């Protein structure tokens, strides 16, 4: 067991929120076609509120702090907030489009001991990337940011969200990442908007494109192993927890709303009204999330993919039942193994109920894949 896994297990046992994603703002200088956010400012937390929240999170035991948005550098107080986070000794990861990161900002991020920076790159071609961000010149600026950050010695990850409009480009983006000495991850996921609007899901790639990604050994490692039929569902699998959301991780919005995960928008409290640690410990919603095991899921517990599926409880919640299947993950398991899930079989048996947009949805890959994001945010640290 790696040290990171040991620490996560201990945090689970002690009910400590080891990882938090904090979105500073939903405002953004890009307008990505697949974005799940409303970019208007509906009353972001002030600098003082965020600093107080950081203090509360440090006291509650939060170690991994992912600062994201929106575009984080749209906040004029971004570096003031980051300095405070540094003082409270978080392991800080940033997610940004990089457009506002020039040499000076990159140097400051290095000084402040940021652990890593993730920048979204949708294509190596400006006409494709800039069409997705709806910001002319954004690819050049984002790539410049990668260079500035690497010049400072910072770890940089180029994240490539796979969509219909850029599905042909991921191999070239991967080569670009190698050239820039950055990590590369591919995320074949377009999620519903946080308000539940599912119209953006039409941007998801189809099964053919997904099968190709799943059979690219440079991305998944051992293809035969990765695409193997699912292992039998045993008692351990039935008692297993879905993911870290609500167990050792949670998400805080720019308005102070606490959710189990950024992809699991079940309101669980607001830090403007209740202390962070009290929400974490006592929120009825988070407590309910913590009770759910595979055994409690009527459909998934009977499914042959139960032990190996990457079912996202947040996407299941957005489909209407956090104990139900996530069709996006069913589709992913199908593309990987060629074996339909119980959920897909039921949908195919009742064609009238089949939602064509759902059947082509896909979701992140299993955590064993080396170049593909792991849902648990603690995966980056090496064991000593």
């Amino acid at each position, binding site marked *: 067991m790696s040290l990171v896994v040991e620490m996560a297990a201990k945090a689970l046992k002690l009910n400590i929120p080891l990882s938090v994603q904090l979105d500073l703002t939903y405002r953004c200088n890009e307008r990505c076609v697949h974005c799940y956010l409303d970019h208007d400012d509906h009353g972001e937390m002030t600098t003082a509120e965020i600093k107080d929240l950081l203090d509360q999170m440090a006291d509650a035991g939060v*170690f991994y702090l992912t600062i994201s948005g929106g575009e984080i550098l749209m906040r004029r107080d971004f570096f003031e907030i980051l300095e405070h986070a540094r*003082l409270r000794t978080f392991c*800080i990861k940033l997610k940004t489009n990089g457009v506002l990161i020039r040499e000076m900002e990159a140097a400051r991020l290095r000084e402040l001991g940021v652990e890593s920076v993730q920048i979204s790159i949708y294509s190596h071609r400006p006409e494709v990337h800039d069409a997705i961000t709806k910001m002319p010149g954004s690819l050049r600026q984002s790539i410049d940011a990668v260079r500035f950050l690497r010049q400072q010695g910072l770890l940089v990850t180029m994240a490539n969200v796979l969509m219909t409009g850029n599905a042909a480009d991921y191999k070239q983006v991967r080569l670009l990442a190698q050239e820039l000495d950055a990590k590369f991850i591919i995320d074949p996921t377009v999620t519903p908007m946080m308000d539940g609007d599912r119209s953006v899901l039409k941007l998801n790639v189809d099964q053919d494109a997904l099968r190709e990604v799943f059979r690219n050994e440079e991305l998944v490692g051992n293809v035969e192993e990765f695409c193997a039929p699912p292992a039998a569902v045993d008692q351990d699998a039935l008692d297993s927890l879905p993911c870290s959301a609500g167990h050792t991780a949670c998400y805080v919005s720019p308005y102070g709303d606490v959710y189990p995960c950024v992809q699991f928008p079940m309101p669980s409290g607001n830090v403007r009204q209740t202390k962070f640690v009290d929400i974490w410990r006592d929120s009825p919603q988070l407590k309910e999330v913590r009770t759910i095991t595979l055994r409690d899921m009527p459909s998934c517990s009977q499914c042959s993919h139960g032990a190996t599926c990457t079912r996202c409880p947040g996407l299941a919640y957005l489909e209407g039942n956090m104990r139900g299947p996530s069709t996006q993950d069913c589709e992913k398991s199908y593309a990987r193994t060629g074996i339909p899930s119980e959920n897909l079989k039921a949908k195919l048996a009742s064609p009238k109920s089949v939602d064509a947009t759902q059947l082509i949805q896909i979701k992140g890959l299993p955590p064993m894949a080396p170049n593909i994001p792991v849902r648990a945010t603690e995966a980056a640290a090496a064991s000593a």
Partner: protein
Amino acid sequence: MNTSRYVARSNAIAARALGDETMVMSATNSTLFTLNEVASAIWKAADGMTPLDEIIKNKVCSQFEIAPDAALKDAEALVENLAGHGLLLVSHEPITKQGNSCKEPA
């Protein structure tokens, strides 16, 4: 010459208590360490102003059943190890200032 050794937590780290242990990560290479209960006590007391032997006397020997000589020997090995990874600064003089130094122990 001052023979005492002073130790201070580096500013290039992330750290947090987890139960009776402490997680420490080097910001320079993302390597993660865990410190046990005794090492955590030394870590928390490493303020750059308190000599190591005084930390051992007041924070280790007073709370754990460890002989002072053995504790100091072990502590010096620990300090050397952590300093080698850039997690602790060690000096024969009090360490009063680092750029963005940590405000308080994790």
